[in-house]
């Protein structure tokens, strides 16, 4: 009887220990960490997000093929939110208890604001486009490059230089046209004040809903008000279509059009090259001909995607996200090791990666304890002969975030 009891208890103990043992990460076969992308693959901004995430995914694939980061493999999880905030919140809920989930990339400002609240609680890093608010109120959300308003301010510096180089006197008049949403207004939250400091006369901004078919009414109003320059916002193909309408109205001959981060890429050029000729674009990541000259980008594209015909500049931006993640992961692993690694260690690592280089795809990393900007530099491009070519080198952007009260 006693022997039977001991056998029975041994079995119970073995089962208990097995349950504890198998649930413990120390028994896991492979050391891995997770990168979650709350993306848009089939929704309204899929055209930009798909190539960007391809860049991140390919870069991570390449790092894993080389053995990972100090033996730690990275798992890329891409979720198609279709640019829908409720879906993004629900998707994060599903993955928030994933072991070693360190960073979440939220594709839109609306998603970032909603999911960001949960990420603060979960002590994880969030990446998001360019909302200056995340620089004004420092937290665990980091933006990809300079804030929208910083880059817009830098473009105003260029406007002044361009105006002077044409021998014009006085200050130019600038019109602003963008989507009627938080992103569309963000550039002006500090950007408007910066332009005023330069003596630029900013016309009352024109906002329109995403999906607007024709932009004639807004363009005509700005032209009649005497605009010398017009910033065409939105996410491509919107800027391309705004300029297409301006070209049809004959406005591109007398007004210089500028576009921002999400301005025309190879896609817009392939459809409206004639209309886009001469327009100016500013970007925190390499575009157009520059992208084709960057070996890190082209090598990875050729390895995983084949011919360079369809290479899009945003693919490079995605690679830069991956590079930053890997760079920070190295710091975090050095600091606490794999077993103790948590989101908060990655948060600390992102703040100590200041100056990190990403193969020249964008300026040096500017993340720091007092900075959530992914970099401080932009480059200015112009469409010439159907190609997007640089007309400046990397230029440091002014701090326009501090000019607005958030």
């Amino acid at each position, binding site marked *: 009887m006693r022997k039977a009891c001991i056998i029975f*208890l041994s079995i119970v103990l073995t089962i208990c220990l097995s349950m504890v043992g198998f649930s413990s990460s120390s028994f896991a076969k492979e050391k891995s960490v997770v990168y979650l992308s709350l993306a848009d693959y089939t929704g309204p901004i899929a055209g930009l997000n798909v190539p960007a995430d391809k860049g991140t995914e390919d870069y991570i694939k390449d790092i894993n093929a080389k053995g990972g980061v100090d033996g730690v493999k990275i798992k890329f999880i891409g979720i198609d939110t279709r640019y829908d905030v409720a879906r993004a919140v629900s998707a994060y809920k599903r993955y928030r208890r994933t072991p070693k989930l360190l960073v979440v990339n939220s594709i839109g400002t609306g998603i970032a604001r909603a999911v960001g609240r949960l990420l603060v609680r979960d002590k994880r890093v969030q990446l998001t486009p360019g909302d200056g608010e995340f620089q004004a109120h420092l937290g665990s959300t980091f933006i990809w490059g300079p804030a929208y308003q910083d880059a817009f301010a830098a473009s105003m510096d260029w406007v002044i230089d361009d105006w002077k180089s044409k021998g014009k006197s006085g200050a130019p008049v600038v019109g602003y046209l963008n989507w009627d949403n938080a992103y569309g207004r963000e550039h002006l939250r500090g950007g408007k004040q910066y332009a005023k400091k330069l003596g630029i006369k900013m016309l009352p901004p024109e906002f329109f809903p995403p999906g607007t078919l024709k932009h004639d009414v807004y363009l005509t109003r700005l032209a009649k008000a005497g605009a010398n320059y017009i910033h065409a916002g939105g996410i491509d193909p919107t800027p391309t279509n705004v300029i297409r309408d301006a070209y049809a109205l004959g406005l591109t001959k007398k007004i210089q059009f500028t576009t921002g981060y999400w301005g025309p890429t190879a896609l817009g050029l392939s459809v409206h090259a004639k209309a886009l000729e001469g327009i100016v674009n500013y970007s925190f990541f390499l575009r157009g001909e520059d992208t084709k000259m960057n070996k890190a980008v082209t090598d990875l594209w050729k390895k995983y995607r084949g011919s360079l015909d369809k290479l899009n500049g945003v693919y490079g931006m995605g690679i830069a996200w991956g590079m930053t993640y890997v760079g920070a992961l190295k710091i975090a692993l050095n600091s606490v090791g794999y077993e103790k690694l948590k989101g908060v260690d990655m948060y600390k690592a992102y703040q100590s990666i200041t100056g990190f280089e990403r193969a020249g795809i964008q300026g040096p990393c500017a993340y720091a304890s007092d900075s959530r900007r992914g970099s401080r530099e932009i480059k200015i491009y112009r469409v010439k002969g159907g190609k997007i070519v640089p007309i400046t080198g990397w230029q440091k952007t002014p701090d326009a975030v501090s000019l607005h009260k958030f």
Partner: protein
Amino acid sequence: MRIFKVIMLFVIIPGLALGAISCQTLKSLTGPKATLVIAPAEVFLSPALFKKPVTFKGSGFQPKEMISVEMVLPPGLKMKGIKEGEDVGIAFATADENGNFTAAMAPTATLNWFFQVGWTPLLRPNFKAAKPIPPGVYKINATGLDSDRIATSNLKIVPPPKKK
């Protein structure tokens, strides 16, 4: 007698440990019972849903916590962007000081998950590529993202009325 001590050691203690682990699950069962009311509880797909979207009202959640409202997809129902077995988030809200919330489906959610539209390069919904969700009774869960409390209700999607 000694044998009982051994039983205590090897059975009850691991049992307590497992019990502690499952406390996390039990957490959602304690506290007030969460409720969810859907208005209207029965709809048919039409453009009227953009003006008067489906609305969710809940109570019994933790004050100030975020709530995710999700539709449980029945097996075999394919939805663009959603993996099989995954629920789809259709609304979200923040509970007030009393743990109550109200959330309405945003137009993008109605377009993406009810009409399942495509999107044109102009960022306009493409109804030609739409695959509207089939009529049926769909389970809706509202989950408190801090408390893990879940309230459940049903939304009935009916075929549009026949034109006379």
